[in-house]
């Protein structure tokens, strides 16, 4: 019996095991390259949790991951693989920035509200394009969302080097590709005197909302049905294409809102280093890792985002203190995805096992009834 319980528990623990194994692989790599892994991970831990500021930075880093991750929960549960987090974050941030800069004299709360809505809408549209392509042209959403990422990034570069460039940068002649600072009234309130802003609270509240959407509403039920079995959904009369497109729209909306929150809460302007990662810090991809790590459950994605936020924040400290490139954590994130997805195998076998046990039980009880 005990052994049985342990076996039942194992699949639930796989995400944790995945992180531990990944960190172990990272330690081996560091050791092979002649660095002390213990020292490196100590720097990482201090960087993530060592002070109030560090902890605040960890939560700040986790916030966009949670926004993207919530959208990923909806999309993956709905059977569509949205890889477009990066592009959706960027379009959301651009829309929020453009709105906030164009109405500097409005009251702060109104700018914030409108800018957040604009970001959500822009992200929803960017995800919706992939949804439309999927529903009407049968275009693989993985490829379309990846292409849309690049298009969004080049669009951002164009806008920040052109029409949206900070007038001050033009006057000074330095031409740094960034926008003007947003009106101060539009800054999201800070929670404690650190960089921690209201965005994290919004994200956590939305996690509960996503849970309710997916498990307590008809729309959520249909989204999950489409994701579980296309055939069953079709047989039940669900318009599967429409729900797949909807999943992408919703995923985009959450990521877009995340982008808007990054601008209003943290950066207060948009900037680019020309690459996809400069503004987003790969949150579009890491949000996928967070959602998978949270077992595609919105509530589980909260601690998952926090942990990944800690790894990413700690990695920066590790880079400064030990000259170990923070990209190590990027590699380990990839490994976590591979391990979590690979371990589905374990879970499937468990399910099969229990199912056959249950059907056996059902058979015996039926026999008993007959007797």
């Amino acid at each position, binding site marked *: 019996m005990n052994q049985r319980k342990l076996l039942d528990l194992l699949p639930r623990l796989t995400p944790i095991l995945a992180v531990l194994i990944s960190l172990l692989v990272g330690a081996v790599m560091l050791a092979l390259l002649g660095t002390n892994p213990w020292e490196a991970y100590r720097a990482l831990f201090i960087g993530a949790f060592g002070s109030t500021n560090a902890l605040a930075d960890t939560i700040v880093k986790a916030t966009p991951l949670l926004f993207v991750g919530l959208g990923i929960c909806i999309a993956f549960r709905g059977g569509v693989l949205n890889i477009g987090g990066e592009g959706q974050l960027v379009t959301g941030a651009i829309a929020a920035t453009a709105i906030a800069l164009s109405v500097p004299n409005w009251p702060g709360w109104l700018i914030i509200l409108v800018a957040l809505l604009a970001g959500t809408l822009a992200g929803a549209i960017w995800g919706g394009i992939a949804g439309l*392509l999927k529903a009407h042209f049968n275009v693989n959403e993985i490829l379309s969302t990846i292409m849309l990422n690049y298009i969004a990034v080049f669009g951002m*570069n164009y806008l920040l080097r052109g029409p949206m460039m900070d007038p001050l940068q033009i006057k000074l002649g330095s031409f740094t590709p960034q926008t003007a600072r947003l009106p101060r009234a539009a800054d999201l309130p800070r929670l404690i005197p650190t960089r921690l802003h209201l965005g994290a609270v919004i994200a956590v509240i939305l996690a509960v909302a996503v849970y309710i959407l997916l498990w307590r509403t008809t729309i959520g039920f249909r989204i999950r049905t489409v994701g579980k079995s296309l055939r069953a959904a079709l047989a039940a009369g669900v318009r599967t294409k429409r729900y797949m497109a909807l999943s992408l729209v919703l995923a985009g909306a959450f990521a877009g809102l995340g982008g808007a929150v990054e601008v209003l809460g943290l950066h207060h302007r948009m900037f680019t280093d020309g690459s996809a990662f400069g503004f987003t810090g790969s949150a579009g991809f890491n949000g996928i890792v967070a959602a998978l790590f949270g077992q595609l459950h919105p509530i589980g994605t909260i601690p998952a985002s926090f942990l990944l936020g800690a790894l990413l924040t700690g990695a920066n400290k590790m880079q400064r203190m030990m000259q170990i490139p923070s990209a190590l954590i990027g*590699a380990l994130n*990839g490994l976590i995805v591979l391990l979590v997805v690979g371990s589905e195998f374990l879970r499937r076998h468990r399910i099969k096992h229990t199912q056959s046990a249950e059907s056996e039980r059902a058979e015996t009880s039926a026999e008993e009834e007959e007797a």
Partner: protein
Amino acid sequence: MSWSIIIGILSSGIRLATPYLYAAVGETIGQLSGVVNLGVDGVMLMGAYVAFFVALRTGSLSLGLIAAAGMGGVFGLIMAFISVTLKAEQGISGIGLYLFGLGLSTFLFGITIRNVQTIDGFPDLAIPGLSRIPVIGEIFFQHNILVYVAFALIPIAWFLLNKTPFGLKVRAVGQNPEAADSLGVNVARVRYLTVTLGGMLSGVAGASLSIALLNTFQQNLTNGMGFIAVALVYFGGWRPVLVFAGALLFSTVNALQIWLQVAGINVPSDVALMLPYIVTILVLAAMAKRRVNAPAALNKRFERGES
């Protein structure tokens, strides 16, 4: 636009097609056996890094190339293990592989090479006689060895897939693994082979960038080329010849885009850079309705004894 400019654009179109060709041909073989590997870009990055690093340290380009193929093969094996043995969802596994390759190549670059350096890559080889033909010679016969090999790969892949028992097995496994299995074909072994081969070719694709075309390495050198290579497989309907045509079309659009910038024609460069990605989406939309050749078991896990 004068003749010499057109020749220049076409010639660099041919050159730029090289990485797409290696990666897309590898991906075609894997997909025909039923496995989508979306991690191509990450594998290319690892191939590019390893080739550059080995070439830089040993001075041998050939060693760099072999190392890239080997590293690609290892990544292919990882993908095969996850998707064939562990039967994981292929799309997400591929993204995991991409993130792993992207992160690892950046990390290793930061530790071992640190700053951007250049090397002398594979030199151009003018083919005696043929390269003297006006226009044609300039466009087709004055490239480095990896370009020629990439083009030779198309008939080789076509022959392998259509005229050999191995090709038949690959297609059978991709179309109907249950039937292939009942005829005694080892489904897992065929898929391991194709995905590993695909990984090796992706590694070479990366090497073609870092030690033959660009002769440098930096973070995210490929900038999404691997994903476009995957898109080219759909575009070409899983036929090497059409994949080749797609790669050529794509790289020529790219060459044109570069020329537009160099010539200072008034298109904002960022808008011009979007062009290849927009073209890819449009082409995917146009082709998706006619997916007659799609391997029926693509992206599906296979378990023995399941009906």
